[in-house]
């Protein structure tokens, strides 16, 4: 059974950078380019008997943004950590994320080592 980390961001540059930072943590990685794409891919991963261990998600994405993604994801999964990685830094946006069920909020730019530390904290 595979354990997956989801990387959800509309920017390929960001997705590749995040994957590069966390690729040696022993998890399978699946990229998605928005909330809709992520929910579909998560469904497929689970239907094959694998599990989602953690999601790293952007906020500003077309089709489905990060806040809506968390709300949808939380309908079926209350516990898997979702870390937000975004340029958004306003308190009211951060609170929306928290209320939707985010586990943490990282404001870009990120240092790869710091991201790895946060991911480790939530994977324990």
């Amino acid at each position, binding site marked *: 059974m595979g354990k997956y980390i989801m990387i959800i961001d*509309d*920017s*390929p*540059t*960001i997705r*590749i*950078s995040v994957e*590069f*930072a966390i690729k040696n943590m022993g998890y399978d990685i699946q990229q998605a380019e928005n909330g809709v794409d992520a929910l579909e891919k998560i469904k497929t991963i689970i239907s094959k008997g694998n599990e989602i261990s953690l999601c790293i998600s952007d*906020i*500003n*994405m*077309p*089709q489905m*943004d990060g806040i809506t993604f968390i709300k949808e994801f939380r309908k079926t999964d209350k516990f898997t950590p979702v870390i937000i990685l*975004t*340029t*958004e*830094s306003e308190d009211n946006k*951060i609170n929306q994320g*928290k209320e939707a069920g*985010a*586990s*943490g*909020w*990282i*404001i*870009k*730019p*990120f*240092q*790869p080592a*710091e991201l790895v530390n*946060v991911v480790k*904290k939530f994977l324990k």
Partner: protein
Amino acid sequence: MIKSESSKFGKPLYILYPGDYFASKDDCIIGTITGTCIVICLYDPQRGIGGMGHFIVPGSIGTSGIISDEIASSGVTSIEYLLGEIVKLGGDRRFLRAKVFGAGYLNSGKAEEIKLSDSNIRFINEYFLIENISVERSDLGGDFRRRIYFSVKDGVIYRQILQNNEESSEFIKLEQEYVDIQFRNKKKSGRIILFE
């Protein structure tokens, strides 16, 4: 940024200062001046959404490319701010086209400045390649400043080469201040908040 309602263009004009970004879905003009910084204009001709960002990548990018480079990450984030605004207005990077300007070297071509200019040009080329956003116009490098006006609705550019520095001396000062700050904070990273 400053906004003027009645410009010579007959529509609202937004002037960006160094480090600013702005996006709109209204029929307006965004303008700025750049010397060493990069100015990117992004627009979606179908939806009439577009924006401009003014920034610099503060230093040289390593041989491994922009993906794992700390200094490049500063440039990626600068563009992310602009793209975030465009997405919030209903834009989608898959439909965007880019026009890029600037990255000049101004003090009679000192080696250091040429290196910075090269690094910024390389960044912008690699970035748009990875993002798969087509660059319709690339007007980079050279030992001069540029004044850029960008029409958001249709992506039309009015570009002027500035030979006379007096006209834009205030802007030159602001750009130098911005560049200095970016160099001092080149390894910055954002806040981390844990909810549990």
